[in-house]
């Protein structure tokens, strides 16, 4: 059992290192334009991802971590993958913690105030592409382990895995995990350092993720387009049929999806959502919505907390549907008085945790292909199921780990600030991979991704002090395991 002074030493050590080696390492990370293969067709020729991998490798080496094996893997045609294995301080410790991050980056995009590859430190933040998504992950993981060793604290076996294609295809991660599983041990905890943060007073633990399902719907009524004066009232309009189909999944007025696509929300998640609804500002306020537009949680006479709760539940636990593409209908400037022969629509469905993409696909297909001639007029209807990914509902942390985590958190953020367990409306496909490959393991998804960190847009930035605190909490947690 470590003492208060041990805790202080760790906090001080992390602080000292953080604003030294750590920042230098992260700056170099920002300088290397290691875009994800999806966004950089020439990545194999320009070698940016490989250089990033080399940079991380040499940084790790320079730390002189005891019991450390560094394995950069660059299999042909695949993005690089880095595994850093650190043996436990005590061979009797059978725990194994896997720390996850990625080295690839989003494309730069327009609107940067500074050069996206020039790490600028201003107002306590580091600006630059990759700073918060997900450069800090590797450096924080390394520093957390090093802090234990330097201060004479114990730590379990740690495996840091840094992938090179998080922003793109998931194939590479699947491949590396399957091919190199023997290098990863049997982690009983996965700490994923690539998630969101919602308050500077505490860490946010992403406890759920929604899944997703993309699908296309095609409706055909004729072999040629038709003059709307000549054909209307005779030929059923394919657009109306399309909308009728969509309404089999969703009520346009309430925008709620059908019961079949909903899940039973676990009681403890409802409590969590209530508790964060009171702590966080209204979720809708962080979106660029028009002032007069009411949020989907708004109801006459409802309190702000209740509205926020409804939004949090909607965003974390309910399905939602967006139309993401339309083919067959022209833009206004080319719009003639025509009934179109065929229309295509692409939909993206967010799925509640617990409903698999496969199950959702069956529901969608079943609903959309159900024949009702008074609605669809025997039109030719095709449903093409696209990509899908399952959501995630983190297993409840065992009390022991939960207590250790809370203690570490308290040491850094103070007694009154508990970590916040929140859901995420988006999807993190790799979570599924970990869940399947390491069944029964515990998950801790956390990170520095505040909404104004602009992880996928211009002016990406990392709140340095918050990141330092996160690193400290991880270090203290490791020291207790």
């Amino acid at each position, binding site marked *: 059992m470590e003492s208060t002074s041990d805790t202080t030493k760790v906090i001080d050590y992390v602080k000292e290192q953080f604003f030294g080696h750590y920042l230098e390492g992260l700056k170099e990370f920002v300088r290397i334009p290691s875009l994800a293969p999806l966004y950089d067709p020439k990545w194999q020729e320009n070698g940016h991802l490989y250089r990033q991998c080399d940079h991380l490798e040499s940084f790790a080496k320079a730390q002189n971590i005891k019991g450390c094996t560094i394995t950069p893997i660059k299999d042909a045609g695949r993005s690089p993958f880095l595994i850093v294995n650190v043996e436990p301080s005590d061979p009797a410790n059978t725990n194994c913690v896997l720390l996850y991050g990625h080295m690839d980056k989003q494309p730069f995009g327009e609107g940067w105030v500074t050069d996206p590859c020039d790490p600028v430190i201003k107002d306590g933040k580091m600006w630059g592409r990759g700073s918060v998504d997900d450069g800090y992950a590797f450096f924080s993981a390394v520093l957390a382990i090093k802090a234990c060793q330097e201060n004479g604290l114990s730590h379990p076996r740690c495996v840091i895995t840094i992938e090179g294609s998080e922003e793109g295809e998931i194939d590479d991660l699947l491949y590396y995990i399957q091919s190199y599983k023997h290098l990863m041990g049997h982690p009983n905890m996965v700490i994923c350092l690539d998630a969101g943060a919602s308050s500077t007073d505490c860490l946010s633990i992403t406890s759920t993720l929604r899944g997703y399902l993309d699908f296309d719907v095609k409706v*055909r*009524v*004729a*072999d*040629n387009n*038709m*003059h*709307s*004066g*000549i*054909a*209307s*009232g*005779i*030929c*059923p*309009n394919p*657009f*109306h*049929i399309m*909308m*009728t189909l*969509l*309404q089999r999944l*969703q009520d*346009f*007025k309430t*925008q709620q999806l059908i019961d079949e696509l909903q899940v039973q929300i676990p009681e403890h998640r409802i409590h969590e959502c209530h508790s964060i609804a009171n702590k966080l500002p209204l979720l809708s306020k962080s979106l660029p*919505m*028009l002032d007069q*537009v009411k949020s989907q949680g708004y109801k006459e006479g409802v309190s702000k907390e209740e509205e926020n709760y409804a939004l949090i539940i909607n965003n974390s636990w309910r399905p939602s*549907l*967006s*139309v*993401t*593409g*339309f083919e067959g*209908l*022209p*833009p*206004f400037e*080319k*719009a*003639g*008085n*025509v*009934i179109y*022969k065929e229309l295509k629509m692409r939909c993206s469905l967010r799925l509640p945790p617990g409903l698999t993409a496969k199950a959702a696909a069956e529901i969608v297909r079943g609903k959309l292909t159900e024949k009702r*001639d*008074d*609605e669809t*007029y*025997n*039109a*030719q209807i095709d449903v093409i199921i696209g990509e899908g990914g399952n959501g995630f509902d983190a297993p409840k942390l065992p009390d022991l780990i939960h207590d250790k985590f809370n203690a570490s958190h308290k040491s850094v953020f103070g007694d009154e600030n508990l970590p916040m367990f929140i859901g995420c409306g988006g999807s993190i496909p790799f979570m599924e991979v970990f869940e399947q490959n390491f069944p029964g393991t515990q998950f801790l998804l956390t990170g520095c991704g505040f909404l104004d960190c602009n992880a996928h847009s211009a002016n990406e930035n990392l709140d340095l002090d918050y990141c330092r605190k996160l690193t400290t909490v991880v270090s203290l947690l490791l020291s207790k395991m």
Partner: protein
Amino acid sequence: MDSPQQPILSYIDSTFYTTFVDALSTFISIPSLSPLYDPNWKENRNLFKQAQHLTDFANTLNIQGLTIQTLEAKGRSPFLIADIQPTSKSTNQVLFYGHLDKQPFGDGWLTDPSTPTLKDGKLYGRGSVDDGYAFFSAITAVKACQIACIPHPKVTIVIEGSEEGDIADLLYYMGEFSHLLGLPDIVVCLDTFAASKESLSITCSLRGSMTFDIEGACLQEVMGKVERLQDFKSQRVNKAFEVEIPEHRRIECKYVASKLPSLAESLPLIDGLQVLGDKEEIILNNYWRPTLSVIGIEELGKKIRLSMRLPPTLDSQKAKQIVLEILSDTKVTFLGNGTGFNSPALSDQVMKSLNEAHSQVFKGEKPLFIGCGASIPFMEVFKAKFPKAQYILTGCAFLDSNAHSANENIDLDYCKKLMKVIALFLSQL
């Protein structure tokens, strides 16, 4: 026994395949594309050449009491007015309408669109059925009356040069040269459809139209609004846009249903598609009921463009008001609108004359009174100008006449019958 009108029919029979077809062939060979489709129309003067061709043709017929002139206001397409003094004591005046401008050629022609080609009783070429025959038919019908020495009323033929494009020129000429048009009792528009070879088709109603954009936060929200205007499942528009269908029109629609194949058969529908009602119902839908189509989309459905077809008797300004009432909480932008047309009932005398003329030519058949689901913008101009006139809209445009597509053609024998009906009709007024 020969009727006194036999010389009319004989004249047409003897000159149709020579004089008329020659004139129509020349019409085809002059590429008088509508100004909208021919930016060089002022330089190449094809529209003016066409007007000259019509004038020359009229002059060679030596028609008694004919005054013909082509108006050429600066910057505007030509507008031809032929005026023929009455040979009867009748105070009636008949105005014929047609146009000399053409649709662009487009792709897919089997023959040259400007080379008149006679095949299987049809004359192929751009402008043949839309609307070359109109002038020649009207003027020949007058001549036929004169040859037969049967009195005819005052006849005015107006041929515009921009029907396929902007309506501004028609409005201008009809406003500025009102004194040359007189005050017709009967307006015969020779630019519409033919539904059956067994009779003429008289288009007695046209739907109006209205185009507007609506906006919202996402497709679903916008569609929630659209649903107030129409039910997606039944595809029926909100009852607020419906009108009481006049009983005599219902009877006509029933008659049309009994005479014609289903309207759906002429559409390129996929096999097995269920249309929006039985034979009679889809006629009522298409002629008399409002319909709504989404015709354009922006920003994935945050903005959509809607086109509504309106019942013939629903004022389009009123339709706008209904939209605004139903969508009072929505941003709506109107782009254009036009009121439909419901032809006033023909007087007993006119109906009798028409029926008799028709019966002689079409073996005892009555003309078919049909509606049209589309709009004909110039009818609004005429209706406003001559609110008390009776209207007869007819023509030779079968669906396979390809009026606006490749391989346009006119069924010559049918056109000859149309000409005969007109001539007999004139002789009885």
